[in-house]
């Protein structure tokens, strides 16, 4: 691989994005890749900009922080500004159609998907993080679907197992429909 793969999951505090990035990190490690995960959040339990970044490499990343984003999730309008100037022209950007009213513009591939709406339809808005994670993974071909599924299973509390499996399935479908 010529350069490292840079992934960012962003939104507002409480949306479970750092958890989702952690799950993706674990799945990628299972597949033999090396990851560096960093995060930024404000000192509040809900609200404010929250993001978690992954730099995926085959050895130790020389710079472990994101500077040119290849794959981006935005789950809240508040997170748009932080990434706008870092998106690569050939990047994949997945935004929540409902809450991100002014998505970033550029030559990259933008998919405005009903992420939060899908989560609510499935019965719990809190699984929007897994819907988003699944959609981005599918669109970016980031890792094997079953590896992701097994990792989500491993990291899900009992009460969320079924919900998260539904969210994974729905997110993957959303991605395939817009390909």
């Amino acid at each position, binding site marked *: 691989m010529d350069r490292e793969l840079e992934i960012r999951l962003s939104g507002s505090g409480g949306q479970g994005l750092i958890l989702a990035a*952690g799950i993706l*990190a*674990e799945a990628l*490690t299972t597949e033999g*890749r*090396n*990851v*560096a*995960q*960093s*995060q*930024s*959040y*404000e*000192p509040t339990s809900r609200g404010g900009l929250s993001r978690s970044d992954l730099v995926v490499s085959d050895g*130790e*990343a*020389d*710079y*472990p*922080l994101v*500077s040119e984003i290849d794959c981006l999730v935005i789950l809240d309008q508040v997170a748009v500004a932080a990434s706008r100037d870092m998106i690569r022209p050939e990047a994949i950007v997945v935004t929540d159609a409902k809450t991100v009213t002014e998505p970033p513009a550029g030559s990259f591939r933008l998919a405005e998907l009903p992420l939060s709406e899908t989560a609510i339809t499935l019965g719990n808005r809190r699984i929007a993080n897994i819907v988003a994670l699944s959609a981005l993974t599918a669109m970016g071909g980031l890792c094997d679907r079953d590896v992701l599924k097994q990792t989500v299973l491993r990291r899900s509390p009992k009460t969320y197992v079924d919900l998260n499996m539904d969210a994974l399935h729905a997110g993957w479908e959303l991605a395939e429909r817009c390909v």
Partner: protein
Amino acid sequence: MSQVQRQNIQGNQACALGAIAAGCRFYAGYPITPSSEVAEVMARELPKVDGMFIQMEDEIASMGAVIGASFGGAKAMTATSGPGFSLKQENLGYAAMTETPCVVINVMRGGPSTGMPTRPGQGDVMQARWGTHGDHPIIVLAPASVSEVYSETIRAFNLSERFRVPVIVLFDETIGHLLETVELLAPAPESLDERKWANGDDNAYLPYGETEDLVPAMARPGDGFRAHTTGLTHDERGFPTQDPAIASRAVARLLEKIELHSDQIASYQTLHCDDADIVIVAFGIVARAAQRAVKTLRAEGIRAGLFRPRTLWPFPEQALLEAANGAKSLLVVEMNAGQLALEIERLCAGRGAVHRLNRIDGEVIAPAEIADAVRQAAP
């Protein structure tokens, strides 16, 4: 005996695991962002190895407890961040003066004062060296990755035990909270340095006596050796004195024991310095950004190099001078208003321009910013 386990862990977690692997069996601390995960892991893991974890009432008491545990023979540690590090300074001086081994982890956040708790900074370079009063010895290490936090924490214990000196491990919030895929190599038992304990004739024992390596043997409580410990300037027996000749020698020995072994303490890494026109000097997370910048610049035909000190104090002076030998200028990049730059300017006076790139806004200096600064500075 070495075992490798591939895992995704945070810098702060790696720090705690490194400490335990080095033989640390006592931790006293007071939680503070962004260092609290060190305490969290120590609280969970120390009891499993018959160690002791205690949360004290504040940072001052924590440092006191660490020193007491070390008197008692344990390898002991605490972890903190800027505001707590300030509070530990008086007792750190006591540890330096009484030659009590101890390790202090300082995960730097934005300062001064309570500053920005969840944002990274590198503003404690000078506090780590000169935070406590008086001419005192201290060693400061600066890891730049999760795996290096692990290995440098082990090295911190080795240096501390061997030279009977406080060792500070200095890294920033970004490294502390960064999760990386690492393979941690458990150190071989014979690679761990143990304290020199007093043995032989009690009548001949001098707790602060002159020895060839300038490091006196310590009296283990219960072994029966007569020892006296005080922060007051003391003679070879450990008793207070104001005799100018004895006082002078006592303080000089503390400083000389570090100078004498500085080659074994100083550690650094260079990248493309051999033919560099400009050498970037950076440590911690900023050095990782500089590494990327050097690659970008080299691809453009700009001959940039990187000198990364792993030991900040004593600074690897000779190595820097050699790395910068053919360079026309240097660029010191750090997340403070210019602290390490002062040392580099002193060392390189008369050898070429020393440029600076600084940020004090809680943001990591990015590779592109460093590359731009080099392009501007390049002759």
